């Protein structure tokens, strides 16, 4: 079975991109499944189910979503195998841009949108920097110049990645992305494999549920800014 991780800022069009690619892959006769990792709530399950794609949703709730992802991706892989899938797609929202769900032996896709502005590629971090393919959506509503500058900025941050525009509404551009999905490496287990980028070094009282503000509550791994 193959696995592809798809990550991107909220509302960048991840689900639409996956659905457009899925249309082509299903036509090719592939058995697909999706695992959606989200924080508090997700409605995307319905969109996948409507397209006839088996889907599982995991909500991180009180946990850091990236920690939650790592703790569950192996079980997701097992689910995919049990469902006899050819390709499992994991979709997760990058919320604080600090981390990324990309794994070393797994094809990594990052979805960003033109509307987020030309400074965004510089701010996103490992989710974009460590991706194999960067998909840029919502190009149909911004000027050609902005599209070109945005793609240039993406290449600045990640010169090795393929950079592909895709219209999530019409599916224009999905053919080339499909090829990146079907050429993803096959794998049997993730045991012992590594993340492409480490998780933050953080364990403080706030991680454990503290909500009060004040010096007394700042115990553990705390970093303070220099206002001098």
């Amino acid at each position, binding site marked *: 079975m193959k696995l592809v991780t798809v990550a991107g800022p909220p509302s960048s069009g991840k689900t639409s991109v996956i659905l457009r690619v899925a249309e082509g892959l299903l036509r090719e006769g592939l058995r697909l499944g999706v695992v959606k990792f989200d924080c508090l709530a997700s409605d995307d399950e319905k969109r996948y189910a409507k397209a006839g794609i088996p889907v599982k949703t995991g909500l991180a709730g009180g946990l850091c979503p990236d920690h939650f992802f790592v703790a569950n991706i192996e079980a997701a892989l097992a689910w995919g195998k049990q469902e006899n899938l050819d390709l499992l797609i994991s979709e997760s929202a990058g919320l604080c841009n600090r981390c990324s769900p990309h794994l070393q032996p797994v094809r990594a896709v990052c979805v960003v949108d*033109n*509307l987020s*502005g*030309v400074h965004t*590629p*510089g701010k996103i971090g490992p989710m974009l*920097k460590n991706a194999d393919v960067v998909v840029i959506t919502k190009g*149909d*509503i*911004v*000027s*050609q*110049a*902005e599209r*070109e*500058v945005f*793609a*240039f*900025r993406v*290449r*600045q*941050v990640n*010169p*090795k990645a*393929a*950079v*592909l*525009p895709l219209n999530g509404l019409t599916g*224009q*551009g999905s*053919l*080339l992305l499909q*090829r*990146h999905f079907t050429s993803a490496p096959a794998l049997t287990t993730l045991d012992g494999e590594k993340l492409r980028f480490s998780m933050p070094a953080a364990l403080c009282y706030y991680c454990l549920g503290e909500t009060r503000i004040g010096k007394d509550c700042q115990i553990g791994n705390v970093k303070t800014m220099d206002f001098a």
Partner: protein
Amino acid sequence: MSAPLLLKNGLVLRREHPYLVDFFASLALPFPPAHLPLAAYLTEQVPDDAERGTLIAQLIAFADGMAALQAQETGQTVGKVTLLGGRDKSGDAEALKLELRPGDVICVVGPTGSGKSRLLADIECLAQGDTPSGRRIHIDDAPIDDATRLSGEQRLVAQLSQNMNFVMDLSVREFIAMHAESRLHSETEKMVETVFAMAVELAGEPFTLETPVTALSGGQSRALMIADVACLSASPIVLVDEIENAGVDRRKALELLVRQEKIVVMATHDPLLALRGDKRLVIRHGAVASVVVTSEDERSELVRLDVLDRRLAALREQVRRGERITSIDALLAPL
């Protein structure tokens, strides 16, 4: 390439690799000082070995990429795009071998659902017999290799559409400069002046270099987009959609794109535009059914059509000024 780059100091880097200014800015790192070699500077800025290793790899890959891009910019331009037929919606062969060259104006016509969008999409994704139409695109008589195609590096098509907006919070000057810099233009200031002058001419209503792009009127925005695409876009083909109501001088817009050696492809049924094209691709049932080359007769009729268009424009202007239309005799006078 890697070793010498790390040995260069800030002064040399700024001169030989100006694009690195942007690279460091996007990482929120100050540019290396004039007399410090890059390697020493990075050791100072990023003490962590692993982190520095990643950064150096990134920097070198970026510099290599830029060098390749620069070579591409100066070295090769697309001389010819060839569109090779596939099959129609019933699977019958499409007899087509169409060559597009810089300066060509091609119109795509046909009823809704006939396959106009498919044709444009085929060009956009550099189809190699793997789209539903089975068409193939060759550039300068050669197919496009898989690696190039999948990397998304070669963008053949730039688009101009009424649905497009500016979303950046920048002045006209900053906007053009930003695009020019991303294309690695050496004379940004000059380019800003050129694009601006063209945009103002197309728009008909003046604006300034300091106007925020988001404050431009519909017509001014369109004019700036057209001038920008003509001068600064990397793509040899410009796909124009709905220029009909754009509020810009359409004739001048087309002339400008042609003068800048663009291949212009328009999906239009407006005779004023269609007759300005060199040929019309007639799409039926998912395939190009015929190619109508604009005749001499059509071109001379276009002259009369332009007169009619100007008369209609005069009426439109009257309405704009809040006047009453008392007679359309002038419109109907012999041409």
